[in-house]
Every structure is written in C-alpha cells, then in structure tokens.
C-alpha cells in the first residue's frame, strides 16, 4: 500500500530528533509539524523571520502580521522569536538549521535537487528561498511522491528540470520508500508493503541498492 501524503509527512516526522531546528518547505513538508512524536521539542523556522512556528490559529484568531513562508497564518510557540530576513537567512545559509525538509520535482542519485521551476512558459519563474535552504541547512531531506501523476520517475540519474542545488539531498521520503543518497547512489532503507524491490526499481530511474537491513515502510492511519 503506498503511503498517503499525510503518511509520508508522518514518516519524515519520526526521524526528527528532540531539540532539532527544522525548516519545512511549502506544500507536503508543511504537514510534518502535525506528526511530531510525543515528548519531542522541535523548533520550526520560517524563512520570513520566525523561529518557533506554531500551529495555525483558530478561525478568527489570525494575525495578518504573523505568517509563514507559504504566507499562511501561523502562531508562535512559547520560546519563539522574530528576526529580520537577513538574520533569518544567516541562520539558513550558515548551517544553523539541523535539517530542512523540502519538496521536489526530481532528485538525482548524486543528491542533486530540482524543486524551483518546471520552466512552464505560462508563468514567470520564482525561486524564493529554495536555493538558500538547499545549500544551507546541515541536512536536506526531501518529501516527494515516487512518480509523477503520469508515472514518470522523480528519482533519477540526472535531473531534467533546472537544478536548485547540486549534491545536497541526504534522504528521500516517498509514498513507496525511504531512500538514502549515498556516495554509491540510492540506498533503499524502507519499502512499502505490496511492492517489491524490482517493482520499485521499475518506478525509479536510477539504480537502487537494497540495504542489508531493508525494512517495511509502514505508517499509521493519519
């Protein structure tokens, strides 16, 4: 059974260590904060100068001056603080975040990341903080559906879309697998039930090596 989007977020959340400082990309990664295991204190950073992002406010409690990088209303947790943009990106670029969890269009088996533009000619391109995050956080992990809606692999030998950064991704969470990017390419750590390694390889452009301790990828109903 492939994981749902929320289950991918749940799985990624399990790997966050108590006390980690984490930036969550727009979209799928944003869901991760809903699934932090009990008892862990994780500090979420938002590019626009918020350290300690809390849950969305109640319906009428939104403050227009308090938003996240996705421009959605948020709250601030106890212990959180505000900085200006330049200091916020100092945190990001300077390696002060333990981890950034990002979305992607493609990830290569060298760890190259493409997540900022599909070159759709109908729209002007926008990069936001994607390139800053991709080179700055101590560790980059990606949450992505294993293939496109059309079934094309997103885990590739070489990205076709314009790169966000080279050789930065360390771990990938998909609906079908958890995969580490190693110096020898993709290392399959966990695989969803109902698919085997050769079935997964058929959906993955670059070669997969199965870890000796390959585990099933399971997530609760969330």
């Amino acid at each position, binding site marked *: 059974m492939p994981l749902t989007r929320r289950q991918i977020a749940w799985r990624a959340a399990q790997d966050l260590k108590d006390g980690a400082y984490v930036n969550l990309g727009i979209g799928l990664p944003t869901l991760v904060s809903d699934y932090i295991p009990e008892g862990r204190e994780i500090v979420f950073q*938002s*590019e*626009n*100068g*918020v350290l300690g992002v809390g849950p969305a406010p109640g319906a009428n409690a939104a*403050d*227009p*001056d*308090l*938003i*996240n990088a996705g*421009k959605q209303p948020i709250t*601030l947790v106890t212990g959180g603080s*505000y*900085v*200006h*943009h*330049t200091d*916020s*990106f100092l945190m*990001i*670029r300077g390696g002060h975040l333990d981890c950034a969890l990002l979305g992607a269009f493609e990830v290569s088996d060298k760890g*190259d990341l493409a997540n900022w533009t599909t070159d759709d000619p109908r*729209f*002007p*391109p*926008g*990069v*936001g*903080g*994607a*390139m*800053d995050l991709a*080179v*700055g956080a101590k560790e980059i992990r990606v949450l992505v559906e294993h293939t496109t809606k059309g079934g094309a692999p997103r885990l590739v030998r070489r990205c076709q879309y*314009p*790169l*966000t*950064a*080279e050789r930065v991704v360390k771990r990938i969470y998909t609906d079908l697998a958890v995969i580490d990017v190693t110096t020898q390419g993709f290392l399959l750590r966990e695989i969803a039930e109902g698919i085997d390694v050769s079935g997964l390889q058929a959906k993955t452009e670059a070669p997969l090596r199965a870890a000796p301790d390959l585990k099933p990828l399971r997530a609760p109903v969330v």
Partner: protein
Amino acid sequence: MIDKRVGNLAEAVAGVRDGAVVLCGGFGEAGLPNALCEALIEEGARDLTVVANNAGTGRRGLAALMAARRVRKIICSFPRSSGSVVFEELYAKGEIELELVPQGIISERMRCAAAGLGGFYSPVSVGTRLAEGKEHREIDGRVYVLEKPLKGDVALIAADRGDRWGNLTYRKSARNFNPTMAMAADLAIAQVREIVELGDLDPEVIVTPGIFVDRLVALPRV
C-alpha cells in the same frame, strides 16, 4: 532639532526621481508599505527598478504602481503568488523586466551595500542557472559565486511604531525585509502605524535606529 515626521504621504515620497532603484519592504501581506507605493503613483516617478520579495498581489500597493506602468524592472525572489495578476499580465506582454535572485541573497546583497562592502562570496545558486555569468571561486574547498551589493536610491518600508528621530519597531513577521532595506537606501521612508514620543521606545528594543530613516509618516492601520 531632529524631526523626521512628515505630515502626509505626498511629502513622504516627494522627490523620488525617474529611474530610481526603490527597495520595497514586506513579505506576503505582512509589512507592506502599500500606502507609500500608492503615493508614488501620484508623485509621478517613472522607469523605476523595484527590489521586493514578491511582485505585488491584488491591485494595491506595488501592484497599483506596476499597473500605472511606473516599474520598468523588478528584482525579486518570487514574483508569482495567488493574486499577482498585474505582474503576470505585464510579464506576459514583455512590459516588465524580471531579475530573479534567491530570497536570502536579495537581503544579503542589500546588507552588503548598507555595510559599505564591495561584495561577498556566496554558496547559494552554485551549479544552477542563476549562477550563470557570475564569477566562481573555490575557497577552502567549497565553490562560491561573487555577489555584488544592491543599493537603493529609496526604500519604502512599513513599521509598527516610530518616533521623531526615526527609531522604529515592528510587529512579528512584518519585520521581514524592512530593517535591511531601511539601511540600504540613500533615502529611507517609513509608514508607521503610530508615532510615539521620543523616549517611549525602549532603547533595547528599537530594531531600526533612526540613523537609517529619513522620513516617517503615521498611517493608522486599516
């Protein structure tokens, strides 16, 4: 006596010249100097280069200035957002020029100008399309690109409280680009929610000291 308060928006933006580089604060809907942008339409300056994170949303503020055909070029990280209709239309018609800069590099380049530096070596965008044409250099085993200072003729910023010396405080994530932009322009103009007596702002909590601000105008939040 130092008194940077001006009586109205027209006085606040008086003297901005054709061709000026205008730094325009805000991120999403937080901390936008909408009233100052709109006052610039009346003021009449043309052929502006605007530096901002986004390219305006809806029909207000920066979007209104663009709709009035006053903006020749925009330097930003993320032009497209829900409601960036004015920009998208002008862009599709080739009537506005776009320079895309990663979010943290926009703010760092402005800080670089503010700090009197000639440039800096950044790891952001290396190996991507946005590094094309930039000088590359390896320093201690890592590759960087040279980024140049980005200085404004004018900064339009939004703050929370201010005093007659131009000292400013902000609210929550409305701080964003505003403090850096105030430092990086020859003429920094602030719209503030409230002007208070000199001495009412705690010296420990002033985020933008008055030295960086040239004019401020009170504008009760609507």
